[in-house]
């Protein structure tokens, strides 16, 4: 039998990005012992790549802002498919979460009167994004990392051990959640509960078992299944796949955000993010004819909300109370599709993107001050000086709106003891996320998942026991790439084929026959992954790590493709060339993915349509009836205040 190191904790948080760390802080402050497990080093999580800012209606830049307007913007951005309760909590609590970061030592950029400065961003009515230049994510991750160190210092002072209540297990990957036998009790007869999580240290390849009644998944996204992506190697859909295999459900997996502005040249940096802050601070998109084309792409649902001339757009930039906002700042799905159309129409840049111009818009020194890492990134990687020349940009796979189906208030997934927050959870952003709503999402729902997990643990009468044979099965499967296989497959080759297929066939614009072709390819890869074989030993072996991650990527990619095939409409981050219209009858339908049966390495995925609960009338009242009529069926609006009064 394989050796497995064992640890007991109250809560295990998987993922050390913003959501994970905020959950850790919350659970620790409620007196629980917490392990935080991360695939990378502490402080390197994907959150560092968030650039533009953190949305919160603090009213520092415009006193007219309210949580209701932030809520409404979020719902609009998501084309009203969002879980409205999550959007409500998010808009209400985001300001407190940002201010709280200041008590941890964060230093945001300031307004003239010394408050937190807020910038414009796509889809937000008012300047709303708290930021630090264009490195806001770094500030947030570092702040929470340092807060955790500070809590560890308190624990050391009290108990003589820095790790008495919080221990960081870095460079450690979880391969499977372990359930109990299905005890009777408060959670329902026979339903199996979370009992722990099994993983391995990347450095040594040795296995580690966490025995814990609650697991918070905060593993981020799935972008590494796509070739052109702004995501790092870590984004292999681990949390999504772990949850599925532990019996939980995913929703909204067909909705993938292609960020409109990724770098397109040189090829080796294709996909690297160019912050929306460039447009928030005045940058504009142009085609090869020098035309600001976004004015031609204001969709009918947003007609009347955006400026229709360049003069009006520029006036708005100076004073956003006296004009309508620029269509350069439409929600990301709209801008990405517009860029795609311009390129297809032959009006793209030499390397297949469009132009993003900040150089002619604001002074050189302002560009360097407000967008220092963009300046640096283009200078060093593309030899382009953005204070002099236009950038070439195009869509890049950036974010998955879909994720683990959770209870809005507690972050609880459908498997008892399992919680999720941040990008790996689903619902909050509907069919499309607004820029800036991710960092605030992490803070609001990271805290709530930490609370939910703590309350759950405290309420338990006895702790679930790990099923030992499940641990054995998981270690055996993890080690199988070291076995000899008849037709050995290289994990890097399989990965490249998956990325190419998802990119080409389930990308920004989709068609039935192409999605079907992607599903056929997935079937082929699911067979071949059995033969994946790696060289070398268990010590820090990236080939082996990738072989293990492939399992998760294949499972999650199948969810994306199957849900994309079923949804015969276009909405947010799901565009069907063969069903180009948005259909009100689809608005309330969630496609719920579950896994089970079939192959143990990559189980079968089923997709079931289910409907959401109706929005409360007071929240319906945040919108004018005439706007909702563009999205809702008539029957759904009977409780709108304009009708019911």
């Amino acid at each position, binding site marked *: 039998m394989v050796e497995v190191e064992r640890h007991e904790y109250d809560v295990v948080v998987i993922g050390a990005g913003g959501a994970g760390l905020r959950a850790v802080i919350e659970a620790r402050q409620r007196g629980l012992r917490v392990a935080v497990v991360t695939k*990378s*080093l*502490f*402080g*390197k999580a994907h959150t*560092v*790549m968030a650039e533009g800012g953190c949305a919160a209606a603090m009213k520092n830049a415009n006193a007219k802002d309210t949580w209701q307007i932030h809520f409404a913007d979020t719902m609009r951005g998501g084309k009203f498919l969002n879980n409205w309760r999550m959007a409500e909590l998010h808009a209400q609590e985001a*300001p*407190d979460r940002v*201010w*709280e970061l*200041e*008590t*941890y*030592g964060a*230093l*945001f*950029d*300031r307004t003239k009167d010394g*408050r937190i400065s807020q910038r414009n961003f796509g889809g937000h009515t008012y300047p709303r994004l708290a930021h*630090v*230049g264009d*490195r806001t994510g*770094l*500030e947030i991750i*570092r702040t929470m990392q*340092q807060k955790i*160190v*500070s809590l*560890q*210092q308190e624990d050391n002072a009290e108990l003589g051990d*820095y790790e008495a209540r919080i221990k960081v297990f870095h460079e450690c990957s979880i391969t499977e959640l372990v359930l109990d036998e299905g005890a009777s009790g408060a959670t329902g007869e026979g339903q199996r509960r979370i009992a722990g999580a099994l993983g391995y240290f990347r*450095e040594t390849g040795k296995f580690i078992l966490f025995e814990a009644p609650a697991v918070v998944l905060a593993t981020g996204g799935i972008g590494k299944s796509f070739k052109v992506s702004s995501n*790092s*190697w*870590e984004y292999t859909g681990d949390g999504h796949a772990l949850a599925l295999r532990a019996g939980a459900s995913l929703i909204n997996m067909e909705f993938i955000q292609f960020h409109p502005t990724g770098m397109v040249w*040189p*090829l*080796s*940096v294709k996909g690297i993010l160019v912050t929306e802050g460039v447009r928030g601070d005045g940058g504009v998109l142009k085609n090869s004819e020098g035309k600001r084309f976004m004015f031609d792409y204001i969709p009918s649902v947003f007609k009347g909300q955006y400026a229709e001339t360049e003069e009006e757009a520029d006036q708005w930039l100076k004073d956003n109370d006296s004009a309508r906002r620029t269509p350069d700042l439409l929600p990301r799905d709209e801008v990405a599709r517009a860029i795609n159309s311009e390129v297809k129409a032959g009006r793209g840049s030499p390397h297949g993107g469009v132009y993003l111009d900040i150089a002619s818009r604001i002074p050189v020194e302002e560009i360097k001050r407000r967008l*220092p*890492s963009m300046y*640096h*990134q283009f200078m*060093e*990687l*593309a030899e382009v000086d953005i204070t002099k020349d236009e950038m070439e940009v195009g869509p890049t796979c950036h974010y998955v709106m879909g994720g683990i189906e959770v209870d809005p208030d507690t972050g609880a997934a459908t498997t008892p003891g399992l919680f999720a927050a941040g990008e790996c959870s689903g619902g909050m952003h509907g069919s499309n996320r607004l820029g800036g709503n991710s960092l605030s999402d992490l803070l609001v729902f990271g805290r709530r998942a930490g609370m939910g997990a703590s309350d759950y643990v405290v309420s338990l009468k006895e702790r679930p026991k790990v099923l030992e044979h499940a641990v054995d099965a998981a270690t055996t499967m993890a080690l199988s790439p070291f076995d000899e296989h008849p037709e050995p497959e*290289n*994990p*890097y*080759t399989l990965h*490249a084929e998956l990325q190419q297929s998802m990119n080409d066939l389930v990308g920004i614009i989709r068609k039935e026959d192409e999605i079907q072709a992607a599903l056929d390819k997935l079937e082929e890869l699911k067979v071949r992954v059995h033969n994946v074989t790696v*060289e*070398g*030993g268990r*010590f*820090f*072996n*990236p*080939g082996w790590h990738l072989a293990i991650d492939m399992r998760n990527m294949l499972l999650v990619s199948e969810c994306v493709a199957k849900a994309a095939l079923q949804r015969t409409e276009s909405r947010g981050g799901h565009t069907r060339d063969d069903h180009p219209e948005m259909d009100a009858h689809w608005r309330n339908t969630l496609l719920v993915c579950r896994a089970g049966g079939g192959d143990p390495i990559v189980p079968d995925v089923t997709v079931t349509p289910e409907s959401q609960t109706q929005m409360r009338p007071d929240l319906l009242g945040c919108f004018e009836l005439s706007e909702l009529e563009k999205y809702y069926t008539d029957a759904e609006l009977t409780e709108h205040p304009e009708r019911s009064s």
Partner: protein
Amino acid sequence: MGAYQASMRVWRGDDTGGGLQDYTVEVNEGEVVLDIIHRIQATQAGDLAVRWNCKAGKCGSCSAEINGRPRLLCMTRMSTFDESETVTITPLRAFPVMRDLVTDVSFNYTKAREVPSFTPPKDLQPGDYRMQQVDVERSQEFRKCIECFLCQNTCHVVRDHEENKQAFAGPRYLMRVAELDMHPLDVLDRKDMAQEEFGLGYCNITKCCTEVCPEHIKITDNALIPMKERVADRKYDPVVWLGNKLFRR
């Protein structure tokens, strides 16, 4: 510029020993050293160990030494080398090797934990904070740090002097002390500890740390020298000295 075959020399091994291995690898226009390492992994050595995350110079994971110079693999373009030149990549020298290009950087996390954390005034409520941009900017510069540890690796105080690691926190954490000392809301005095516990006196301002910083933070000029001045004011200013003698309990 078209594709060409580059000669790469990569250190392979672990804590028991190892050596440089030669690889001939294709290089395309615009590629960075990390792309080439990935190509070696995908086509010639699937188990070649390297740390990386963002591949955009934002996370500070892929630190290594390229032709002996501490650099980020993702921000070093192959076009900075002659096509005929052999490019040698070795792990960070100041930290123990784990495997291939991956080193044990736990020294840094230990030091991070020793610096007393941000200490706000007790009575101030969240949301009440007012700070001027000019006042936050000094600390903000240091908070640009991506913790790549290149400065820690290059600093001669520890690079070839393992014995100094105990008493010296390194530029990254001395800068953290300075950052908190200059933080408009922090109330804790860290001047004495900068000198006594974190070894500020070991630094003789050769600016090697500033030179390797991929974020172009002026570590020496803006953090270490001002910190030294603050410490010197405290220790050697005769008025302060007298005041301390008279009023210290």
